[in-house]
Every structure is written in structure tokens, then in C-alpha cells.
């Protein structure tokens, strides 16, 4: 069990880490030339005039990948404690973990069978 001091280090790190990239950007802001005009500020879309706004219709496939990822991510909440404690556990725990993973694999197999994982 670490002390809160280790986390104090991480906290200070979180506060400081922004400074490193921010400094050169601010420095550049001070030094660089600033002569924007309407032409320069156009969005770069291969020289084609921008038509409409940025709300292009996205395919639902992105959502499906995000969804499968979310489910597997949540699985980690249980698998990491299981893995850490594994040395102290018995065959029963192995069975429990096996069943847990097996049940989730069902979902993956289903998605595979329904061709939900294809990039169409």
C-alpha cells in the first residue's frame, strides 16, 4: 500500500506536465509573426471550398467499435483484481474467471457472426 505521498508526486506531476508543452507554445506566440488574413484562415480541405458545416454524417460503425471497447474496458475492472489476487486463489477462482471471460467471449462471437466487426 503506497502512502499518499506517492500520489502527491502524481498530483504535482499533473500540475507541472501542462507547463512543459505550454511554455514553447506561449514562447512561439510571443515571437512568431501574426499576419492572419481571411485566405490563410480558411480551413484546409484540399483546396476545395468548404461546403456546409462540419456536421458530416458519420457511420454507425464507429459507435460499434466504441461499444465493444467499452464492454471490454469494464471487464478489466474485474479481471485486474482477479489477476492480482490470483496467486492467493484456488481452482474455484480459476473457474470463476474462466466463466467470466467465456460469457463475454460469447458477445464477441455474436458480434463476429453478425459481421458487426467488419469495416464496411
Amino acid at each position: 500500500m503506497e502512502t499518499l505521498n506517492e500520489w502527491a508526486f502524481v498530483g504535482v506531476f499533473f500540475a507541472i506536465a501542462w507547463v512543459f508543452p505550454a511554455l514553447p507554445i506561449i514562447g512561439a506566440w510571443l515571437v512568431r509573426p501574426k499576419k492572419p488574413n481571411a485566405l490563410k484562415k480558411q480551413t484546409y480541405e484540399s483546396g476545395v471550398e468548404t461546403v456546409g458545416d462540419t456536421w458530416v454524417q458519420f457511420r454507425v460503425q464507429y459507435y460499434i467499435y466504441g461499444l465493444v471497447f467499452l464492454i471490454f474496458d469494464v471487464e478489466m475492472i474485474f479481471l485486474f483484481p482477479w489477476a492480482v489476487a490470483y496467486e492467493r486463489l484456488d481452482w474455484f477462482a480459476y473457474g470463476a474467471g474462466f466463466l467470466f471471460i467465456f460469457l463475454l467471449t460469447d458477445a464477441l462471437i455474436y458480434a463476429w457472426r453478425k459481421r458487426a466487426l467488419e469495416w464496411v
Partner: protein
Amino acid sequence: MIELNAQTIAFAILSALILGGGLGVVTTRNLVHGALWLILSLLGVAGYFVLLSAPFLAAVQVLVYIGAIAILIVFAVMLTRSMTSLGEVRNRQWWISAITVVLLFLLLAVGIILPVWGRGAPGDVTTLSATVGGAVELGEALVAGDGFVLPFEVASILLTAAMIGAIVVARDEEDGQA
């Protein structure tokens, strides 16, 4: 009464993050901003978990909420083209909701939390037990026969059902061979 040290300062900053982010979520017009406010708020909650000596849950909070749920929400915002809600942000009865919510908070805070858990209550201790269970103990509890092994498996089934259900509902009819 409350001394000024690193922990209380961290607590104050995190509380500001949580509540500010929460207010951002419910008031902002732009839903992408809303998702980012949500991320900020949830990051604050992760900080709370660290302060409460549950670093495992803090990491999981960042992993699940910020890495996955927030991304999913942004996907949904883009897919439904509801980046900025046209027209009103709030419905017509919003002030009724606001009053109800304020009353509810007063009830919770003044009516329950302060009398029950305030000064002199079990939680008002100055020193906490130094030894708390970590991920190892959580793992043991999760798969122990007299512990949470049944909820553990049910969680797996719930996740499976959620994934299958969401895929079925979200997919277009044309490209899924039913």
C-alpha cells in the same frame, strides 16, 4: 476546524472540478463541450477516489468513463448531429425542476447528512485506519464463494447482454443480415 494542508487543498480543487464540470454538463448548449465538461467532472471524482485510498477505482474511473463512455457519447453526438441543440436548451418546466432540485438538496444536506454524519458522528474522525484493502483484497472478495462471485458472473452476463442488445439496436437494418 479544518486545517489547511495538502489534502484539504486537493479536496477543494477536486470539488470545484466536480461541481463545475457538472454544472457545465447541464447548462452548456454545445454537447461536445458538454462531454468535455463531463470528463472534467469525472476526473475530479477519480481524484476523490485517490483521496479516499481507492486508487484502483480511480484508475478504472479514468479508464472506463473518460476513455470509453465519454468517447461513446461524443460518437453519439456526432451520429445524431446534435452538436448544438437548436432552439431551447431547457424545456418549459425547467424552473420547476430547479426549485425541486434545490429543495431536494436542502433536504439531503440539512435534513440527513449533517444530523446523521455531522459533528461527532462515526465519520467525523480525525485519524483513519491506515490499512485499507486494495486491488488484491477486492480480487479475493470478488471470486470468493461467500463473497461476490455470483454478482461477478451476473455482471459478465449483463455486459454480454448490453453488448448484444446495443449492437442489435444500433446497427442499420440494411447492412445487418438480421
